[in-house]
């Protein structure tokens, strides 16, 4: 890392954030979710970044339409290797279990490939599935999210984690807040006052 701060446009927030920011979006409106997701993806692609999406809640038709509206071709972006998407469960719960180490390695690999491809940045957006509460390894969610913060310092992938408040209990939502340094409130990305740095957790 050269220490030079690169700002990126998330697409759905007014202000830019530093590359490698880990953002949490708590929502209870499906349109809010889709709008943020699509804007985030297209803005990344327009910036030439490696862009990935892990979600069950966006269809091929929505992607195609939005991409087209933004002057992009879904097929072309895929063919170029800049864009990839998969359902959450396929990525997060491979082999029927949640493995933070595998996911962190995946993120690392994603960043390294982006650098190797000479792209200016890398971004990923994913929506956590409520199945995490019942899948083997699911109890390691907070550990994973916390370690992401650490990883992003070395591999500055801009990451947005989407949580549907209708699918999780209130305590889990609050716990999730504690591991994301930034969060989205009413369309603005703000510092999360509940965030606890991994170092603090480790010390704690």
């Amino acid at each position: 890392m050269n220490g030079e701060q690169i700002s990126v446009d998330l697409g759905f927030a007014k202000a830019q954030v530093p590359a490698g920011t880990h953002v949490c979006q708590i929502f209870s409106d499906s349109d809010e979710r889709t709008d943020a997701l699509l804007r985030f993806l297209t803005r990344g692609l327009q910036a030439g970044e490696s862009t990935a999406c892990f979600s069950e809640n966006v269809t091929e038709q929505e992607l195609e339409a939005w991409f087209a509206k933004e002057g992009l071709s879904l097929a072309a972006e895929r063919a170029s290797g800049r864009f990839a998407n998969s359902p959450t469960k396929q990525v997060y719960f491979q082999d029927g279990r949640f493995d933070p180490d595998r996911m962190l390695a995946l993120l690392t690999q994603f960043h390294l490939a982006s650098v190797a491809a000479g792209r200016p940045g890398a971004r990923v957006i994913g929506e956590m599935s409520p199945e995490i509460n019942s899948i083997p390894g699911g109890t390691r969610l907070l550990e994973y999210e916390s370690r992401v913060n650490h990883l992003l310092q070395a591999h500055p992938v801009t990451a947005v984690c989407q949580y549907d408040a209708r699918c999780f209990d209130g305590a889990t939502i609050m716990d999730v807040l504690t591991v994301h340094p930034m969060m989205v409130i009413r369309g603005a990305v703000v510092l999360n006052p509940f965030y606890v740095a991994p170092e603090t957790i480790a010390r704690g």
Partner: protein
Amino acid sequence: MSPAPGELRADILARLLLIQSTAGHLPTATGVMEFVCRGLAQLPGVAHAWHSEAHGDLAGSEPGLERFPVRLDAHHYGEMVLQVSDPAQFLPYSPHVTNLAFMVAVMLEERRRRALEEVHQGELEQRVEERTRQLSQEVGDRRAAEALAVAERQRAEAYLEIAEAIIVELDEEARVVVLNKRGCDLLGVPPQEALGRNWFELAIPPEDRVAVRAVFERVLAGQSELPDYYDNLIVTRAGARRAVAWHNVALREGGRVVGTRSSGLDITERKQAELALAAEKERLAVTLRSIGDGVITTDTAGRVVEMNQVAEDLTGWPLQAAAGRPLEEVFALVDAATREPIRSLTERASAGEPVAGQRIQGLLLTRDGKERAVADSVAPIRDRAGATIGTVLVFRDISERLRLLEHLTRSQRLDAIGLLAGGIAHDFNNLLGGIFGYIDEARSLCKEGEPLSEALDRSMETLDRARDLTRQLLTFSKGGAPVRRVVDTRTLLERGVHLALSGSAVACRLDLAPDLPWVEVDPNQVGQVIDNLVRNAVEAMPGGGKVDVSARGLTLHGGDHLPLAPGRYACVEVRDSGVGIAPEVVTRVFDPFFTTKAEGAGLGLATCYSIVQRHKGAIEVESQLGRGSTFRVFLPAAPEGRAEAAQLAPAGHRGSGEALVLDDEPYLRATLTKMLSRLGYHVTAVATGEEAIEATRHAVAEGTPFSVAVMDLTIVGGMGGREAIAEIRRLAPEVVAIASSGYSTDPVISSPREFGFTAGIAKPFTGPELAQVLAHHSPAQPGSDGGATRR
């Protein structure tokens, strides 16, 4: 640098704001509270935070707990409870937490109201929708009702025209106001001609006008007691008369009767059909009355509807008592053997089982407790459409037929047994004849009182029993007609009863009526009957008792329950007070080899039956278990003339002159020679028919013809008496020819005159028995021990 106690931190305030902002995403109150409390637990000085449903004023009630009610106006959402570990650290944030709690309450209350409004809105929308639909329906209904009314009116007008009924309205003067097409057609007048005409002149036959007008007047008077329907004749323009059934109502205007409206149906064909039906019913009733069988009809529920006189007589139920009762009650049928109720054919037919052509036999239990053997058949009664509307049961009393059948069956059995027994008994009888003869001779050589004489007497008694047995067997033999003589029934009974009771401790009361007729019977066989019946009576009373024997004259006129021809009979009753016979076997006591006694051969009563039957008589039994039995024998009375002659016949015999004996058995020739010699005859004995003819020819030539000839009918390998008699009779017409045979059933023995003989005698016989026969057929000789006697 840590802030000083009591100093607010911006990041903490930001957290409170963030909690407030983010909580709105959580859909449920529980989720909101969990989220908020989780966030509050991270405030400075707070160790733990939770939500409580309680909403009392408990603030400060427990040390270290801070309670923040979540409340808006009167609506409570519990409280947030914070366990404060460092009050100094927490204190600056307490008002903010209070504020947060209020904001959360506002949010939840807003949600509640929104939800309520949504519900109210939904209900309102639903009501509007419902009312809209109702209005739409009402409008549709009203339009449909109007259309319906128009259609009904049109339909009513059309009905009036096409109605099968005649519709006629008359005014107070009986003028026609309305007459529909059917009425016009029936009367044969066009509507314009009918309207305004007086109805009675137009349509009612003159002879009926007064009566019909009276009805019209009553309708006008509003009399309510008129029958619903009234029928009268109308006359058409062509003069035909039709029967019409009317329904009349008064027409009113403002409460006043202004006319009548009548609807009428042409019932001419129905009337004719009713008359035909009544005639048919009468014919059926006459037929039913004249049928010789009982007939009962039932409805589909199996209840009696109709029964004829025969059915009433046989069941004992008059129709008025039986009508409506279940058939099983009126026609109670049980199995003759088991006494179990028989499921009737009617019941089976009602259950849909095929019963056509089937007959059931059983005992009908009559209303007065009698039993009748009946056979019944049943057939369904169907209407014209083929539906079953009841059943008809036809039955007849078959008691007499069963008795005759039983009689026939028993006779056939007896014949079969007789065929077997006869052959054996004949040979045995011949042997007995020889033994009889020799013992008889030996006894005549002994002096009275000698031990040998007594032994011979006992031998004779034993032989008597042996002879009785063979006679019983021979009774069954084919062609065993009795050797009849006219005898005094009184003497026959006195002797028979005396002999049967000899040596018995049982007393006997003999009651013989003065009108007891003589009978023409085989005395031996009938004696056997009396002997068997009295012995049976004695054996039925092992503990002793009394036998009642009574006899009387009886005239039968036919139609009795007995298989007897009309005429005069001697009726003999033998009654005991013994063990009786079980009902289930009482009908079998006359069967051969049927016995209830351990040592019995089962031939006694069968023999009685066979003997009586061959005398053209009858025997019957009545018995009650434990109370005794009565056997009743009917024997035809002897014709008056023959009875008179018999009363004058000699009782004994002493002969003289020449006598011929024909028998191929040397010992029988010798015995007979001795017997006849003792009776005073000079005897010539031969072994064949040819020798007998030759001896007769010789005697006639010598001028000393045989006055008596005793001839065996059958000679093995040669001519017997049967073949020789014709020639002997030709040579010596006056000879008293006695046919003798071991076959007592030989027709020559029972009807000797038809074969040329004077009399017959069955082997074995004793000297006195031969003497008795000769006494009846030979002229009396001086020195005979009998004479004309009259009893």
